């Protein structure tokens, strides 16, 4: 089906186009000929495929939704000589996509997903040594540590569910790592320790701070997302570092894992803006062809959506989250062969107020200070989706350039409609050869949302001795109750009084149907509390547990003890009834026979909600003057107490002055004589 364009054809294509340019001189000719008949002209096909997608629905856990296969027709008709050259069918495949969701608040949510599939087996005896699209560093990690699944995320900021709705891929503030090991691993703890240290190096993060005091083995909350049904949680390790600060130094290694993501030389980065703004015309006009080729050859390694990943813009945002997920998946529907899936995701929310300067409009250039000029040559699919569900008639915002290519998908229990831009099509880039999507808001309302499931957490009480952790879970569904799994991992220095655990909803006691509690051991392991709680419809469920703040040893305090100590987010996983099932008028669009019994896949969807981490102050000695403290204590103890004790216990007598030398000699003589001494 898809023409997997590898590097070589691209070279040929580029050279061809260069020659064309030289012939044409400064005259602007369009390289893309009429052969690029696109689906844009054929709305019927688009509608058909959209319906087809709507019928499909992904799994409950990681909902993967298929884009419309609009490429086929176009790709077949493509008449460029480069594509016609036969290429060996590779066993790996790379897809990239960007989803842009305009949010109610006027902010904008951009979610990148890069997916590399590789049909190989790392666990076999012979070592895998030839890597093509799959990053070698991760492949080696998988085979060395017998990893079955690996999920790592770095997040800066907190996802505001009440304003932004649910994210496509939730993640807690800071770093989160959870790994399923193969059941062939004998010493899981040692492997885990080594793995975290290796990952720490790969991602330039402080993952080496993961040790037994912040690692837990959840019994129910984190199930494998890939194939395989081993659910013995002895092979699972979960840890979060809520304090981890994510910055460009974490983004760069993450970008390097992409096939089209890394810059090769500093030289390129110097010219990168020129390349983008002026394109190749500049080069031709400058008549320095060889220079152009050199420049282009370097730049071509960064192409496709990865062009947009500029750190100074990605970190000028309200929320930034990057993640890597590795899991085994089925190659085909019969699941005869498995392949490894590497999914790299990056989620960013741009703030209207910080960068809008009052104007409510967004463009790719404004968000990323780049526009798109081509797809990644290595990608089999490269698309941009714009969520236009809330904007069916264009009354909320205006989207330009317009596309008639639509796609529908079930996302988070809701049927969403997307405008699709296929970057593998030259038409997408239009006559200016660059795609700069523009969203201009028309309305100015920004209400709070009421997501069906929402949670928050805080520390109650004052003083430095005790406290209480409150977790509030909101079920905003009008008539359905649903169960949630709550996972809390609390460091040992907050001594949880588990007998004070209360779960109340609507003023009544709500007994959890499942509780898994593992008490902490000082300096060894944290508390682990997992509960299955039923949330009644339209209610707030409050979980409270009291704790005592431990006094640490003086070497155990961090360098900034008065900042406080972090407690990681609690994780709430649930199957939430979907809004589609909630819609009573759904029968309107569908045939009657299809809608009497609720379809299981559509009736609920999986959601994971992370609460905010907590910052708790522990009783802290005054480190600023240890010298004074030591001096004072020692003085008080030695002088004050010692002497007082002496005075109280000793009985005093007036001592005879010691006898002189003559008297002593006389006494010795008297003793020898047997006479009593003087």
């Amino acid at each position, binding site marked *: 089906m898809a023409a997997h364009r590898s590097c070589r054809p691209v070279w040929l294509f580029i050279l061809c186009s260069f020659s064309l340019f030289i012939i044409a001189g400064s005259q602007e000719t369009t390289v893309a000929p009429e052969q690029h008949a696109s689906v844009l002209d054929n709305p019927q096909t688009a509608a058909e495929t959209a319906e087809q997608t709507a019928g499909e629905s992904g799994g409950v856990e990681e909902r993967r939704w298929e884009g419309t296969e609009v490429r086929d027709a176009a790709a077949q008709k493509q008449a460029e000589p480069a594509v016609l050259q036969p290429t060996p069918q590779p066993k790996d495949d790379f897809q990239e996509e960007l989803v842009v969701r305009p949010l109610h608040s006027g902010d904008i949510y951009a979610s990148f997903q890069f997916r590399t599939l590789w049909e190989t087996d790392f666990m076999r005896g012979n070592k895998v040594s030839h890597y093509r699209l799959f990053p070698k560093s991760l492949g080696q990690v998988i085979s060395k540590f017998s990893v079955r699944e690996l999920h790592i995320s770095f997040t800066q900021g907190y996802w505001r569910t009440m304003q932004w709705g649910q994210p496509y891929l939730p993640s807690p503030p800071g770093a989160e790592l959870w790994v399923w090991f193969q059941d062939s691993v004998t010493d899981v703890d040692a492997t885990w320790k080594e793995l975290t240290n290796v990952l720490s190096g790969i991602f330039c993060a402080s993952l080496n701070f993961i040790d037994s005091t912040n690692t837990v083995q959840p019994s129910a909350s984190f199930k494998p997302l890939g194939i395989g049904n081993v659910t013995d949680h002895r092979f699972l390790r979960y840890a979060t570092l809520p304090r981890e600060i994510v910055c460009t130094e974490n983004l760069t290694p993450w970008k390097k894992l992409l096939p089209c993501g890394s810059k090769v030389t500093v030289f390129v980065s110097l010219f990168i803006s020129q390349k983008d703004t002026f394109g190749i015309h500049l080069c031709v006009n400058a008549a320095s062809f060889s220079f152009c080729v050199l420049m282009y050859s370097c730049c071509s390694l960064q192409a496709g959506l990865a062009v947009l990943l500029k750190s100074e813009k990605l970190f000028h945002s309200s929320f930034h989250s990057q993640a890597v997920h590795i899991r085994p998946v089925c190659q085909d529907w019969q699941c005869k062969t498995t392949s490894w899936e590497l999914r790299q995701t990056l989620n960013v929310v741009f703030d209207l107020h910080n960068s809008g300067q009052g104007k409510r409009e967004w463009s790719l250039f404004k968000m990323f200070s780049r526009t798109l000029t081509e797809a990644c040559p290595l990608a089999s699919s490269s698309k941009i989706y714009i969520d236009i569900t809330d904007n069916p008639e264009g009354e909320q915002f205006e989207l330009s350039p317009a596309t008639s290519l639509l796609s529908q998908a079930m996302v988070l229990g809701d049927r969403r409609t997307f405008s699709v831009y296929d970057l593998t099509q030259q038409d997408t880039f239009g006559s200016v050869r660059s795609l700069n999507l523009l969203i201009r808001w028309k309305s100015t309302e920004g209400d709070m949302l009421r997501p069906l499931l929402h949670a928050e957490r805080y520390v109650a009480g*004052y003083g430095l001795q005790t406290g209480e952790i409150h977790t509030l879970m909101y079920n905003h569904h009008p008539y359905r109750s649903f169960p949630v799994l709550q996972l809390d991992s609390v460091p040992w220095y907050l001594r949880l009084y588990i007998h004070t655990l209360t779960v109340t909803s609507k003023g009544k006691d709500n007994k959890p149907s499942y509780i898994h509690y593992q008490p902490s051991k000082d300096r060894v392991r944290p508390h682990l509390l997992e509960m299955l709680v039923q949330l009644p419809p339209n209610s707030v469920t409050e979980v409270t547990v009291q704790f005592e703040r431990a006094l640490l040893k003086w070497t155990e305090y961090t360098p900034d003890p008065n900042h406080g100590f972090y407690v990681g987010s609690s994780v709430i996983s649930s199957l939430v009834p979907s809004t589609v099932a909630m819609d009573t008028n759904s029968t309107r669009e569908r045939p009657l026979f299809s809608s009497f019994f609720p379809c299981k896949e559509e009736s609920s969807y999986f959601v994971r909600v992370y609460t905010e*981490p*907590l910052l708790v102050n522990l009783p802290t000695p005054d480190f600023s003057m240890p010298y004074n403290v030591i001096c004072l204590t020692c003085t008080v103890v030695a002088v004050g107490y010692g002497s007082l004790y002496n005075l109280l216990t000793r009985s005093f007598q007036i001592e005879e002055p010691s006898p002189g030398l003559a008297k002593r000699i006389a006494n010795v003589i008297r003793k020898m004589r047997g006479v009593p001494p003087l």
Partner: protein
Amino acid sequence: MGLLSDPNRRRALINLLTRLNAPICVVCYMAGVAWFMGLAFEPFTLRTYMSENAMGSTMVEERFPSGERAVATGREFAAHKKKVSGMPVEWLVKTMQARGLEVYTQRFSRTLPFPDENKERYMVKGTNVYGILRAPRAPRTEALVLSAPCTPGDNNNQAVGLLLGLAQYFRNQIYWAKDIIFLVNDHDLIGMQAWLEGYHHTNTTGMDWSPLQGRGGSIQAALSLELSSDVVTSMDLVLEGLNGQLPNLDLANLFYAFCQKIGVLCTIQGKLQRNDWDSVSGYSHAVQTMMLMVMKQASGRPWGDHGLFLRYHIEAATIKGINSFRQYKTDATTIGRLLEGMYRKLNNLLERLHQSYFFYLMPSLSHFVSIGYYMPAFGLLAVILLLRALDLWVQLATPPPTTEDGIADIEQSSPGVLSVLTPLVISHLTGAALYMLPIRFQEMAVEHFPVSETEAVVLTAIAVYTAGLALPHNTHRLLSGEGTEQGWRVLKLVALLYLAVLLGCTALINFSLGFILALTLVPGAAFVTPHVPKVLSAFVLVILSPACTLLFSVFFFQELQEMPVSFLDGWLLYLSVISQGILDHFLYGSLVYPLIALLVYPCWLLFWNILFWK
């Protein structure tokens, strides 16, 4: 210590201490007072300096431009306030939302134990409105608070306007690392109490409030803004909080540093700083400033909305704009820039403010007296009690010359236990009555006497207090025996040690209160015996009792504020101060009223008892 372990020298020392006891006590008292007065002398005090490195320099750019618009917003707020005659909740919610904040409200209600006549309120119902500016890429763990009270009448509209203006300006900045909460609290301190209790989910005073929906993690610092005019001449810093708690000195330093940088006149206790410390008037100015701080701190009440934050270990201060007849005026833009600078510095904090002092007195904004300097003044007063106790101990330990056999001694001292215990218990019962009865009996008092509830409470308190003076007669009726010479000595020994511990603990928590109580209670406690002239000493003892101390403090405070009052006005003020003190206890948990009623007053009664020992 070698001095004490040698029995000869020990005896000599004790002889010296007992023989010269009275002169030493007098000298100590004088030295204590002199030391205290010396604290305000500038060469003896330290200059303030910024201890927190994260706030080290004032090198931030203040760019807040829209003071005029903020004042206009304030006018709009005033109009809406007038229209709904109270908190314009809807307007505030809408305005804050338009500025890009997450807005929440909190309803609360509180019935006071008795009507507050100063503020004319009894059943209080209100709504707090607050908007949270979410810091970009911050995980909601830390927050700063800027609050402005919504007061009835024409006050404080500009403060709310400036708060909204700052919110709008802050919202467009990218550099925030902590969430900033903009709070407009209804019914000043009661609203603030409700909000803080809601935020921390505690309930210490039995108030009804609706739970908060949005939070920003642990609050690092808070400022409360009071501004009632479009332009001001100076900004005043108020530090004294509940129970005499003070914020970290770095917060005051921060304010001072930015006032210096921006060129705003800044005051503390409403007093400008003077440079002529070596002149008499300069020195007395410093003394006045410091004494005002001491009086305010001793009162134990929050002197601004910030006062309630301190309980939650949140460093907070109130900034008041003062408009006097001075020529030089500062506009709202400059005040906005001052606040912007302070918030940007607080935003830079990596840890809570902890580097600088928590216990200090300020004779001026640029100078402070640390705990190490002022504690000796109190120590000199407290040591008098210990010296007198030592004297009594020695007197009790040496067998009286009249009886020589041990049996007589035992017989003499055995009623001592009872004679000590009975007055102790009775005086504490009186104290408990003073604490409980005024609130309990207000309804009955209103029924039988032509007074209002507030008057009833205050007059009942005074009546119970006066009735306690009849204690000696009651005690003796209970004892049904003659008090012995040994008896009063033991009682006085116990009372002296009790007072010493009591004052010591008080001074550690609230130095000013401890010092003022020591200043008046110690002389009476030191020299009272049954053998001094009754009438004169009774008069002196009453003058030095806690209630009269309060009365003098009221007059003295008015004098310090340069608003002297006539005796009758002073008396009315005194009555209202008592009622405010009781209200502070029940509304905000101030500890001064129970401390006086349950501990200090019974202790004083013990000495009263000794005077009338038979």
